[in-house]
Each structure stands twice: as C-alpha cells, then as structure tokens.
C-alpha cells in the first residue's frame, strides 16, 4: 500500500484549485509512473500526504494547431498519444521520436509529458526535445495564467518553479521554433527499453545549402537539469557541414555540460558521449532532409 492519507479526483481546473487550496500539503499525481514509484520507495516528500489526481481534467488534454502556427499540447497527454498524434508527427517529429523511447509500452500508456517535466528528472526523455523547440510552459494557479520558457522552469534535480496550488497546463511551441528544422534524439542507455538514459542528446538543425544556419542542442543527464549548449550552438552558425565542424561542435559541448560519475556511468564515458552524440544526431536529422 502507498503511504498516502487521502485521494481526490479533480475533474476540472476550478475543482483542482479548490482542492489544492483546501489541502496545501496535497501532491499532484498525473499518470503515477514517477509519483507512485517515489511514494513506494518512501521518499519523504511523497509520503504522508493526500494525492490530487488530475488526469480527468479536460483543460489539460488535447493537441491544437493555432491560427498563428503555434502548437499547443495539453500537459496530460500520454507518451503514446504524443508519439502517434498526426500534428506532433507533422510539425514537431523530434518530440514524437523522443517520447517513443520512454520506458516500455505500459509506462508510455500512463506517463504524461507534463508529469515527465514536473518530475524534473535530468534524464527525462521528453525534455531535450522540448528544450530545443524553445517550448513555453503555461502554468495556471489561483493568481492566473503565466507563460514560462522551459529552460526557466527547472530549479534542479526534481525541483521546479511550480508553487503549491499551481499546475502546468500546456506546452506551447511557436511556428518559428519548428519550421524548417530537422531533428534527431539519441537515448544512450544499457537496454533498448525499460531503462533510463545514461546520457541523451537532442539536435534540431536548419541548413542552408551545405551550411548550418541554425543549431540547437540539448543534453539530458549531463547536469542537474536538461542543458542547452550555447557555446556549440553559436559556433555552428554559418559553418560548413563537415566532419571537422561536427567534431568541433562535440568538443565545444564540453564547455556547457557538467557530467558526473554515478552508478549509471562514469564522467569519462559521459564526456566522450557528449563529444560524439551531437554529430551523430545532426547527421541522422539531415539524412531525411
């Protein structure tokens, strides 16, 4: 049994705000694939409180293409829905590819993209793709709605800027952040399924002839949060698409990563992956271009 004191099911955002206000210590649970695992492991912050379920709130569902080309993705879409959604596949295929690699089918049926980001794990598979698309997180709380760039949403491992009573409602990706880009994601793990990345890398690239006109890179598990690579991205601008350029991009990524040694992998091997994965991802992304 889980060490929880009560369970409430919110069926609308208004009801969620009411429930959260009535019990400020309650935790949100979405698909449960992280929250219930942490509760079972008796992580202190995940025991001894009530849970508020939010998966039946309609405002957190749906994937919409808005008039200005912005893609608005409800936070409670499961990985399976994101993977197969025609709008996602057409406009932000890197995200579809990334979430197809989460855990196994069972996890992907229950786990949600909003939960993946709010859990704030450094290795979350949806995060690098969302970072490279410059995704905006829409947060709703008792005080209203605010839009926060995803890079500002994280405070550290397992820590976000969400305050009690607030909920991440939608992800918004603007047309300028996906049009003309090609993407690829590598999840480097010991197994092909039911595993967490030792290191992961998403590349989103735009080319003009044989030149890189725009490059965005984001690593997972290379620091306390997912990390964009400003030094390498700036270097790549206007560079010819050659093996030497790709190798230099990889080397420059080491300026922005903060690899550590833990039980999953060593710093030395992670640093090596940091230098080779961007080039592989860029090449794979452009294979279909």
């Amino acid at each position, binding site marked *: *049994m*889980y*060490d*929880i*004191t*009560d*369970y409430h*099911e919110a069926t609308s955002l208004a009801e969620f705000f009411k429930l959260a206000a009535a019990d400020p210590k309650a935790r949100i*649970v979405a698909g*449960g*694939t992280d929250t*219930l*695992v942490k509760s*079972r*492991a008796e992580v202190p912050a995940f025991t001894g409180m009530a*849970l508020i*379920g939010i*998966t039946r709130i309609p405002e957190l569902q749906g994937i919409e293409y808005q008039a200005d080309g912005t893609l608005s993705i409800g936070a409670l879409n499961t990985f*399976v829905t994101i993977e197969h959604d025609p709008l996602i596949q057409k406009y932000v295929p890197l995200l579809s590819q990334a979430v197809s690699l989460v*855990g*196994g*089918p*069972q*996890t992907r*049926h*229950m786990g949600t993209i909003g939960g993946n980001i709010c859990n704030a794990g450094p290795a979350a598979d949806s995060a690098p793709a969302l970072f490279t698309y410059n995704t905006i997180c829409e947060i709703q709380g008792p005080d209203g709605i605010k839009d926060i760039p995803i890079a500002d949403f994280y405070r550290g491992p397992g820590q976000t800027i969400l305050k009690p009573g607030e909920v991440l409602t939608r992800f918004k990706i603007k047309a300028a952040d996906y049009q003309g880009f090609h993407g690829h994601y590598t999840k480097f793990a010991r197994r*092909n*399924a*039911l595993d967490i990345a030792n290191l992961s890398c998403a590349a989103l690239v735009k080319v003009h002839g044989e030149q890189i006109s725009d490059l965005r890179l984001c690593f997972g598990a290379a620091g306390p949060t997912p990390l964009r690579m400003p030094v390498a991205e700036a270097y790549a601008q206007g560079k010819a698409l050659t093996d030497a350029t790709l190798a230099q991009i990889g080397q420059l990524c080491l300026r922005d990563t903060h690899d550590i040694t833990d039980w999953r992998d060593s710093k030395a091997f992670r640093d090596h992956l940091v230098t080779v994965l961007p080039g592989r991802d860029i090449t794979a992304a452009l294979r279909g271009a």
Partner: protein
Amino acid sequence: MKHEINFTLNGEAVTCAVDIRKSLLEMLRDDFELTGTKEGCGVGECGACSVIIDGRTVDSCIYLAVWADGKAITTIEGIAQADGQLAPIQAAFIEAGAVQCGFCIPGMVLASDQLLKDHAQLSRAEIRRGLSGNMCRCTGYQKIIDAVQLADAKRQADPKTVVLPHFNIER
C-alpha cells in the same frame, strides 16, 4: 480511508469500497482474489502485473485502485473464451513452448493479446517492441515472440501448418 468505485472487471460490472492506499494490483489480488496478476518489481519496470485497462496494457502495481472507477479492466482470468476454451494467444503460448517458470506469463499473455488486437498484422520487430515492457528471465524471449507470431499467422489464414522463421510447428 475507503472510496466506493464502480468498474467492469473481466466483463462483469462490479462495485467495491477500496482502501485509497491500495494499488490496482493489491485490490485485484486481495479484494477480488484474482491472484493470476503477479507482482514482480512493484515499480513499473517488469510488466508482470500487466492488466488491460480500456484497451491499453498498464502496470497495475503503479496504478491506484481508485483510478479503476469507470474503467473496463481485463486480467488473465478474463481472457479465456466464454465456453472455457483457451484464448488463441494462450493456445499459441502452449504450442510454441513459450512458458518456462510462468511468472511473467499472465502479463506477457495480456500484453500479447492487446498487441494483436491493436495491429492487423505484426512483424517480429513490432512484436519485440510491443512486448518490451514485459521482462522474462527464463525464456530468452524467442519462443514468446514465436507464440505471438503463431497466433498472428493463425488468425490471418488458419493454415494447417504454420511456418515460423525458426522452426515448423506441425498441427
């Protein structure tokens, strides 16, 4: 604290006052005495506790029992045909020799059955990916994948002899 929930369990409408602290796995095994659903890892990493909820394969160990409210759930006890005959996928597991210790098999059979329902035809690669959430520590998976291929082939044409990539099965 208990919540009253209503759901469909193996085709039958049921009502249950369930402890909100329970997982679906615990409710199925303790309250309904359906012990075919196994607990493996308990943290959603092995698939032994897989059940089908509204047509989706889900790990019942990390699914709150109260979430069953309003859902249709199938466990291994609900998969045989109405007349008591084994489901085609169960028969295929036996025919292909896909079972060793058996602990992963209820979850494996349910995941396989749903996979077949979701796809008109399955390649070996699709079967591997479809069953990638279910761990088996005995078989090495080959014969489990053979079993799903066998069930897939039989529903396509019902031939007398089905030729598999690795061996022939004579009926």
